[in-house]
């Protein structure tokens, strides 16, 4: 029980993720979370504005069930399967975070300085909104996210997925090393 309540090591978590992928593949589906964003658009009537959203929602309900389950899984894991929820990041990272005045790494799963409802000022809301817009736009442009490209695509040795993952890191490295210092220091 102890080992379940502690954070799971990478060599357990990684293979579990690929098992999840195969559980979907063996039911005729694929592992791709960002597709749900398109389905939600369609369900809200976006098909009136672009034929990109002209899809049969019924064919994608399984994936909405998947993310609904993922939310429930998140609730279960954080509330019932975790002894404490802070994340043991490296000391070097902690030093950098302190420069950014982010100090909640010793107590919490996410930086409360950004995510706590009490700290939802205009700055933080802007970060979350812009981040969300980039994610929603970029994943559909690239045709997939971490699940669809990094895990599913690379597992099939797809060149397009490799290029996408390189893109993920170009964007991520630019954000963390070039834009973060401008935004937060």
């Amino acid at each position, binding site marked *: 029980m102890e080992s379940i309540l502690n954070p799971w090591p990478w060599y357990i978590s990684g293979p579990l993720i690929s098992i999840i992928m195969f559980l979907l593949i063996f039911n005729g589906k694929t592992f791709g979370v960002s597709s749900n964003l398109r389905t939600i*658009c369609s369900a809200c009537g*976006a098909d009136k504005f672009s034929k990109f959203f002209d899809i049969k929602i019924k064919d994608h309900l399984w994936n909405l069930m998947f993310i609904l389950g993922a939310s429930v899984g998140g609730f279960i894991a954080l509330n019932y399967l975790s002894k404490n929820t802070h994340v043991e990041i490296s000391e070097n990272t902690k030093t950098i975070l302190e420069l950014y005045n982010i100090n909640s790494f010793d107590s919490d799963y996410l930086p409360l300085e950004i995510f706590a409802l009490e700290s939802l000022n205009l700055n933080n809301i802007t970060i979350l909104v812009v981040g*969300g817009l980039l*994610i929603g736009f*970029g994943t559909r442009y690239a045709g997939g996210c971490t699940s669809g490209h990094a895990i599913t*695509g690379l597992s099939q040795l797809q060149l397009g997925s490799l290029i996408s993952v390189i893109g993920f890191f170009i964007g991520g490295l630019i*954000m963390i090393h070039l834009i973060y210092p401008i935004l937060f220091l």
Partner: protein
Amino acid sequence: MKKLYFFAVGIVFGIVMIKSEAASWFRIFEMFYFQSFHMYGIIGSAIITGVLGNLVIKKLQIKDFNNNRIQYNNKENTIKRYIVGGSIFGLGWALVGACPGPMFVLFGAGFYSALIIILSAVLGTFIYGLLKDKLPH
């Protein structure tokens, strides 16, 4: 019944995302500083087991649970959309420290500000749908 299956697999996914810490902003920040092997270990071992699994499926022509052949759809042969779209996603992934799976997981886990990310991501996808034909792919 089928829907319940995907709901159940989703629950396992949500638990793995939290317990592996892949849904933690801190881990994503650390990953882009290359200061821990953790995230690379998760993604790398998922890919290696995935590659092996796909090889076995193809070699032995294993059928799925419904006795159908397992289909592999090849991605398009182009670079632009992957490198440009991928980089845009990467900017957002690093900015909020969450990709599409974890944003739903985090919301369920009680980090309600993740809802702002989800709604904005839906809007971002909508904007892509409007501009799709004007963008280079």
